Every structure is written in C-alpha cells, then in structure tokens.
C-alpha cells in the first residue's frame, strides 16, 4: 500500500501547476473561451512539449511510460484551473482505444500524432436517445465490400469542434441495445459525409452534434474486433471516468478553498461570515465530501487494472461519490458566496457550472448506482 507519488509525477504536477498559474489566469481563460476558437492551441503545443500528451502511453508506443496515476495528476491540475483543452477526449479516450486495441499500423499512425500534439481527437459515443447505455446505438456501420458505411447522429461530442479526428461507436450487427454487435471506428473529421454543428457548452467548453451520412470507411478504420467493442468501450470509459473524477477533485478543492477564503473576507452583522457556526459546519461537510471524493478517485484509478467486476465497481463507486460531492460542493459554494455566487463575474459560479456538467458525463449518479447494484 503506497499513497506516494513518484518524483516524476510530482514534477508533472509542479509543471502543470505553474502553467495554469502563469498562463491560465482567470481573465485569460475568460477571453479564450469567449473567442472564436474557444480554446488555445498554443497551450496544447506546450502540453505536447512538456510531455503531458504522451504521458499515459508506453515507450514502445511512442509515449513516456506513465499510466492512470499520471492522468489523475494531470487532470487534477486541469480541474483546479478549469482547463478546457481536450486531454480526456484525445489522450484518455482516443488514446485509450488505440493503446488497448489498435493494430501496429493504427498505433503508428495515431499515437505519435497525439503525443506530438499534431492531432486532436473527440470521442463520439452519446446519442440523442441512448442516454448512458453505450450499446443503445442507432448509429450503424454496415459492411460494404471491404469496408463500412457509417450513418447516424452523435450527441454532445465534447471537443469535436477542435478535433481533426473522431473515434465513433456504431452498431455493426444485432438489435438496438444488444451487448454484442457494437464496434469502434477511428476516422478523420473531414471524411466525406461527416458534418457537424458546433456550439458552446455551459461549462465553457465546446462540443458538436456530429452527423454521419453514408460515410465510407475502410476496414482499417475499425479498432479492435468487429461486433465486440462493448467491453473495450467500458474499459476506456472507465479510464475516462477516473480521469474525470480527478478533474472534479481539482475543481472541488479550489471551489472549497475559495469559499473558505470568501467567508473570511465577507462581513455581515459586523463579523466575517466564516465566524458563523452554521456556515462553518457546512464548509466542514464540503471538506469531508472532498476528502471522500479524493479517496474514491484513488480507488477507481488504482483499480483500473483489476479484474472487470472489481474495476467497474470501483469506478462506479467513484462516479457516484464524486458526483454527489460535486453537487454538494458546487451548490454550497454558491450559497455561501451569496449573491456574488450567481454572478458571471465571480469565478466560483464557473466552478459550479463545471461541477454540474460533470455528473452527466459517462453516466450520472443514478446510472452508476444502478451499475454498482447490478455488480453487487
């Protein structure tokens, strides 16, 4: 049992912490997310230079030999600064599919481009009527000669406006919601027949509705085995959830600290409001919820390599516990900030927004409580 980070991990943390502090200050972030692009490619290039984008890939695949704990450290720092750049879609999701199931040629083509920052990926799995069931797919990929023809509509694909490539889930056989018959493909976003409608999300990111109309894919676009993609999707999304929980922990830590600091400054009835026990105990409950969320994030991250049931239970436990903590801390932080908490000007509201949307990514509290029950 060991809860220490390696020296390399501490260096990564320090480096990112500095980057966020020096280049991701509140005003700069505000301008960037309001700009046409909505993100800063120059930050992405720096992340590549720092080796961040190659961290969770093996050296054989062209990465730096890190793992899930590295992604956790990275995402926690990003969460503290509400960094919008798409580490999870590109590195954890697309990168995850490729490193677990990619052919040598696919790894060669894609992983190097991820590590260098040259290509950005988005993961198109959600559908308007699929909710959190990865097998509930209307998007289809029909065999056509040696390749496939892709048709369908993917919902709220985070980071897609910035992406050059997409990883897409589609049904290659069977009925809607069948666990078998699900496949995963990788393709360039500018492939003929792909159209997008891009928009802002409430938490300062960008996403797209992605439409596929008779998109011709070569056989090489398939990742893993045709029709057997579901366990792979579950593995990769579990990895994404662990990283996402780390991001939420970072955001919760800052939201809590901001709230405690605000309660020290803000005076009512002649005293700082932090002197009121009714608020003190609520801030203690936020702190306790945060510490428990950190513990569950560790648990999920450290169990990603365990057997399937143990992994899924740990990840669902984290998504439930962190989701509940995120809701509590977000709402209480706004409440204790009073009217200022509901203004666009104060940073706290933006942490609240990010922590709110966190719940719906890769399955909300109810969904993961159900999964936990089913596995128990």
């Amino acid at each position, binding site marked *: 049992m060991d809860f220490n980070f390696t020296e390399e991990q501490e260096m990564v943390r320090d480096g990112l912490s500095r980057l966020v502090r020096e280049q991701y200050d509140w005003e700069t972030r505000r301008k960037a997310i309001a700009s046409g692009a909505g993100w800063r490619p120059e930050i992405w290039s720096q992340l590549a230079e720092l080796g961040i984008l190659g961290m969770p890939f093996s050296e054989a695949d062209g990465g730096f030999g890190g793992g899930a704990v590295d992604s956790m450290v990275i995402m926690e720092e990003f969460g503290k600064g509400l960094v919008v750049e798409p580490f999870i879609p590109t590195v954890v999701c697309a990168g995850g599919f490729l490193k677990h199931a990619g052919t040598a040629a696919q790894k060669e083509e894609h992983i190097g481009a991820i590590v260098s920052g040259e290509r950005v990926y988005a993961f198109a799995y959600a559908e308007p009527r699929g909710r959190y069931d990865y097998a509930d797919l209307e998007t289809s990929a029909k065999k056509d000669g040696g390749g496939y023809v892709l048709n369908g509509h993917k919902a709220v694909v985070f980071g897609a406006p910035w992406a050059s490539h997409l990883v897409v889930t589609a049904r290659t056989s069977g009925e809607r919601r069948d666990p078998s018959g699900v496949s995963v493909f990788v393709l360039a976003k500018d492939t003929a027949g792909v159209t997008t409608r891009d928009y802002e999300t409430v938490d300062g990111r960008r996403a797209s509705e992605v439409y596929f109309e008779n998109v011709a894919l070569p056989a090489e676009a398939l990742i893993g085995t045709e029709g057997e993609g579901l366990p792979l999707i579950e593995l990769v999304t579990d990895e994404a959830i662990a990283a996402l929980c780390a991001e939420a922990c970072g955001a919760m830590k800052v939201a809590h600290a901001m709230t405690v600091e605000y309660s020290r400054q803000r005076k009512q009835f002649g005293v700082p409001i932090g002197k009121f026990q009714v608020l*003190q105990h609520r*801030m203690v*409950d936020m702190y306790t919820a945060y*510490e*428990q*969320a950190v513990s569950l994030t560790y*648990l999920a991250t*450290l169990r990603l390599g365990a057997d399937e049931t143990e992994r899924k239970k740990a990840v669902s436990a984290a998504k439930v*516990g962190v989701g509940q903590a995120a809701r509590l801390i977000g709402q209480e932080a706004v409440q204790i900030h009073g009217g200022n908490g509901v203004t666009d000007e104060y940073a706290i509201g933006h942490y609240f927004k990010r922590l709110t949307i966190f719940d719906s990514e890769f399955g909300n509290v109810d969904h993961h409580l*159900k999964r936990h029950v089913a596995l128990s």
Partner: protein
Amino acid sequence: MNLEFTPEEQAFREEVRAFIAENYPKHLADFGMREDMAREDFLAWHKILGKKGWSVPAWPVEYGGTGWTPTQRYIWSEENARINAVMPLPFGVSMVGPVIYTFGSEEQKAKHLPGIRSGEVWWCQGYSEPGAGSDLASLKTTAVRDGDHYVINGQKTWTTLAQYADWGFFLCRTDPSAKAQEGISFILVDMKTPGVEVKPIKLLDGGYEVNETWLTDVRVPVENLVGEENKGWTYAKFLLAHERSGIAGVARSKRGIEKLREIAANETAYGEPLIKDFDFAKKVSQLEIDLAALEITELRTLAGEQAGKGPGPESSILKIKGTEIQQRLTELTLEAVGTYGAPFHGGVSNDNTNEHPVGPDYAQHAAATYFNMRKTSIYGGSNEIQRNIITKMILGL
C-alpha cells in the same frame, strides 16, 4: 501509488488469521458488541491476547506494544472484524494506557500498565458530567488537596461499564480560580475507595451500558495524579485524539454490510429476495460506496502515520463518517428485518426465558443495536464538536 499489500503484510495476515481461528473463544463467535454481555465475555479475548502479547498493539514496544506498523495494525483489526470479535475495551488499552505511558510517573507505569495489558484490571472513564457534555471544560467535580490526598467531590455521568470497573480515570477541577481549561487535573481512582457510588442508567436498548458515578469525599493518594496538577486538559485532549483514530470501524462495518446482504437475501419482499428490490439494494450500494471512500481515507491517514505524522485533525473525518456509516448500517439492518424488528427480546418474557424467540435469529438484536448505535455520533466528542475541530484546525476559521 498502489493499494496492494506487500508479501510480508500478506504473510502477517495469514499468521494473525490462523491465530484468531485457533484461539478466539468459540462461544463468542460473531458476537460483536451486544447489550446482553457478561463481564467475562468482554474480557475473554483480551486475556488471551494479553498472554500472547497482542493486547496493546499500538503501544510502544518498551511498554508491551507489538511493534507492528500502522498497516499491520489495520490488518489485525480487519481480521478481528471478519469474525466480529469482542475486542479489548478501549478505556484501558486506547485511553488511559497511552496517557500513563506518555505522561505518568515510573511508579504509575509499573503499577497500572501490566493490568491493562493482561485484561486483569478494568478501567472506566470519568469525563462527562450532567452539566458538562460537549462543553467538557465546564466540569465541576473538584479535587481538593488535603495533606497526601486529594478529596474528590462531584458527579460524573455516562461512565461506560463502570459497574465492572476496578479503576477509573477522572477529570477533576483542582484550581477553581483558573480559566476553564487550565484548572483541571487527571486523577486515577480505585473504584473500591469509600465514597464512590455507581448507579446504572438504563438505555434505549434495555441494557445498562453506562452509569452515573457519584464521588463523595473520595480520598485519593496524591501519587494518583497523572502528570502535573492543572495540566489535565492537555492529557484529556491527547486521549481524545487517540480515541478517534480507531473509531472509524471500517472493517467492522464491512462485515456488517456482508451480514446485511445475507439478511436481505433471506428476507422476502414482493415475492423476491429483498436484496432484489432496487430501492433497498440501492441503499446498500450507497452505504458500501461511502464505506469504500472511508476505507481509503483511513488508509491515507494510516500512510501519513507510517510516515511519522501523528493522528491529526483528519481523524475527525474518520469519526464523523465512520459513525454515520455505523448508524446507517444498523438502520438498514432494522429496515431489512421488517416487522420482526418490533418484538422486545425476541418476544421472550423475563418469566419464561426458556421460550424460543419469535422471528429469525438475525432479527432479535436489530432494533436494540440500532437504538444503541445512536450513541456513536454523540460520544467521543459529538460529531458537531468534530466539525468545530475541523473548522479550527483545518479550515482555520
């Protein structure tokens, strides 16, 4: 970073598991803490462990500790919780023992530590008073110096299992003019001293776990003062931090959830096992998730301890969450047994104790345990006091 135990730790687990299997008294198997336990039931395992040298694992080796790492101690408590063992009571082992070896005189160490280790001497805690609960420093019991003695007068309450106690450790006011926290002393009292009177308090579960302890002109030799006069508050706080660190009860709650699942698999609801009822199963899963979080939080605290940090204010989190989980567990267990939670003492009257209890065995103690466990968020510094501690020590407000 990893959650695995080392091969040495695994081997240690095997060793203690084998020892427990071989030596734990069979008639107390899966007993835990029940309202109908006899004095000897509390002491049986303690005495066996005393002989083995394992009754006070956390103590420094020179005083009889085992020298186990915090992780080994964690494994030890896990293995005991697996069979819901009746563990040595905390009053000697985790409370007064550490105070005596840390602040006591050589004579006090020689006189009292062996009896605590062996389980021969039963200790009780004289802290709370009718007017001094959470506001412990407002206590009024006085100890007045008279030659070579202190003369103690006052009333203590919630003295757990004092009816069996040989000795007690009492907080008494020795300087009435000093500020609340500054005039208190920590005094050891032989419970057989004239003037000590213990009156049982009947609790919700029907048991007599706590007492009122009246002290009337109790003459105690001055050598029973621990440390310095008027410094008792420091020792009291030290003791409370020690008390909190084992209070999470993670391993025991884990076993409790297993039992709850067994009960829910056996109970029928709407023609199916209760555990198949999603509304119920969801509550069990939520509890399990909260416990998983607490377990890692405790392990993180232990890792900190292993790295040389003492039990800090984080132990307040363990107390709050640990007791909340223990209470929710007993609440769900009572819920699971359904209507058979209601019969008092399994429907067995005092006139005919040979009757067979009604309902399933597991239902018999469900309500009593639920009622009993309401104490956990109140004792050891109520959970509200723990929040005050975190406010001050961690949030810095």
